């Protein structure tokens, strides 16, 4: 049984102008202890998926269907009381720009202690001991526990936020752009540290990022999102070797690299679609160089083209025998 099994997840945001089709029929699985990545551009629905999993959606979101099986239990149907227990202890999340969410008037350590005590019935002293363990785990010196957020650098704040997410030994941590605002050297330190912790504690990670290079380095399997749809999912090495969806191909050739030959970048024509009125058929077809007549009429099925490699495309680039 996989740790997390997401089936046909669909979620819209209701606005005055109409429904925003934010997550459309998304299915994937996460095994215990594995790191998966979710790549896509801003507004493609990757953060919305995470929020749907944790049931942390804003008021105007409408959950329209699908199942989220966490250790076999469907999170979409359990009472809020039970869900609260699963957040943090079962699945925790490192939010995007969370380092800016530390309260400036409280000591960082106390904020984490408070968070722990909200979820676990332990004493202040025990919680504090837990925090120093966590700080060691994420590579923060113990003396900074009693300092205030403004005395932390950006990288230190991010580490503290990660420590907070790890506080209750979750089985799955969702990291939404965990290093986006940070410089590369700090980013490298933090990603390495998260990976060490993941292996040590045997927890699963779900990285959400727009940076395909970061995902390539940290994930074992990855999913590519476009306009609310999961267009490709599979083993990271396989996808990089044999990308099947034209969007995945485009994403890879749009990224400059410091390694290898300098090659011409291939941008995509046009802009990502307005999710108020997503294109009929395949949502990528207006920008796709390989689109055929059927692409504009019917949405492609999300199917396996080789073991463990799923693609939603009428004309996949490679992989199909």
């Amino acid at each position: 049984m996989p740790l997390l099994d997401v089936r046909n997840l669909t979620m819209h945001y209701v606005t005055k102008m109409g429904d925003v089709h934010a997550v459309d029929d998304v299915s994937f699985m996460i095994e215990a202890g594995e790191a998966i990545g979710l790549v896509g551009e801003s507004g493609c629905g990757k953060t919305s998926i995470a929020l749907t999993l944790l049931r942390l959606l804003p008021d105007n979101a409408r959950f329209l269907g699908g199942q989220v099986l966490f250790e076999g239990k469907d999170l979409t149907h359990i009472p809020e009381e039970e869900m609260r227990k699963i957040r943090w202890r079962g699945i925790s999340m490192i939010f995007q720009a969370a380092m800016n969410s530390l309260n400036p008037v409280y000591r960082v350590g106390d904020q984490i202690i408070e968070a722990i005590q909200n979820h676990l019935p332990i004493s202040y002293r025990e919680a504090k001991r837990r925090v120093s363990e966590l700080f060691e785990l994420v590579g923060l010196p113990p003396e900074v526990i009693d300092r205030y957020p403004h005395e932390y650098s950006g990288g230190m704040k991010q580490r503290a936020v990660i420590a907070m997410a790890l506080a209750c030994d979750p089985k799955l941590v969702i990291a939404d752009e965990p290093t986006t605002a940070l410089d590369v050297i700090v980013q490298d330190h933090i990603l390495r540290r998260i990976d060490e912790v993941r292996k040590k504690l045997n927890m699963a990670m779900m990285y959400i990022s727009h940076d395909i290079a970061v995902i390539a380095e940290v994930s074992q399997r990855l999913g590519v999102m476009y306009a609310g749809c999961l267009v490709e999912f599979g083993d990271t090495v396989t996808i990089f070797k044999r990308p099947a969806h034209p969007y995945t191909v485009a994403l890879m050739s749009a990224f400059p690299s410091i390694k290898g030959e300098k090659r011409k970048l291939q941008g995509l024509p046009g802009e990502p679609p307005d999710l108020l009125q997503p294109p009929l058929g395949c949502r990528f077809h207006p920008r796709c160089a390989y689109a055929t007549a059927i692409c504009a009429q019917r949405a492609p099925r999300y199917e396996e083209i080789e073991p463990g490699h799923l693609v939603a495309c009428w004309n996949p680039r490679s992989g199909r025998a």
Partner: protein
Amino acid sequence: MIPRRNVGIEPLWKIRARLWARSLRKNWGLFWESRIGPLGLAIILFFVLLMVAHPILMATVWDPRVYDPVVGFDRAMVGRHPAPPSWAHPLGTDPIGRDILSQLMWSTRSEFALGVTSALITVVIGTFIGAVCAYFGGVVDTFFMRLADLVMLFPFIALLMVLRSIVTLDLWRLALVMGVLSGFGGITIILKAQALTVKVKPYIEAAKVAGGSAFHIIRRHIVPNIMPLSFLYMMFNVTGAVFTEAVLSYFGLLDIRMSWGIMIHTAESAGYLGAFGQYWWLWAPPGAAITLLCFAFYLVGRGLDTVVNPRLRKR
């Protein structure tokens, strides 16, 4: 070389007018949704109706000798003034036999003139000084900010009392004095704070790099971006001006022929305020009018607030 295209579509002013109309429609929609804004506007319209109706009534059904708000007198009821409401005088008469309703309607005009003029002066000064202070900073900023502190701390009513002993304070002078004083006062600080958030935007730097002078940047970028807030504060200022006028008139400090404040003053100086409730038609109509008009402008301000501050909007 790409050949020059001539855009020759439509004259620019036409496009601008259309864009302007579109944004007006959109903002009106937001204002409408605020609910309290339109309510305020309806009350204001009601007062405008009263204002417009007065000269018409005077020209048609109301005999000027009886119904003139200042020199009128109803001879038919000698000895019974102040008379309670009747068919002839829907809101009764005052102690010297003048029609209350006529006074109330006639005064609306001066309340509007005073409120709008003084608020307009306030906002023009506040916007300009705020923008200049934010843009230049330094000594200019310090000077006007300390001046604002001083003006805010100053006993405003006392100052007007002193001023009145030097010059006669008619409606326009009062509007000017109030407008100038509050223009240099608190509103400058608020608008400067807003201007500061505009000043640090990269488009200001872009305009500088493009060669824009300080005057150009203040006029084209900073002022238009703080205008919505200025307009909002203008509504609140109308409220302040109407209130101040009422207070000053009540103490008999103004050289105005008739106003809501003076109506209360008349009742008070003739000794009819003491018996509370007995001569209610003397003080209740002007009192209610003052409260209602101030309330209306405040509601419009709150309604505009939801247009100006997207944070306050419901999703």
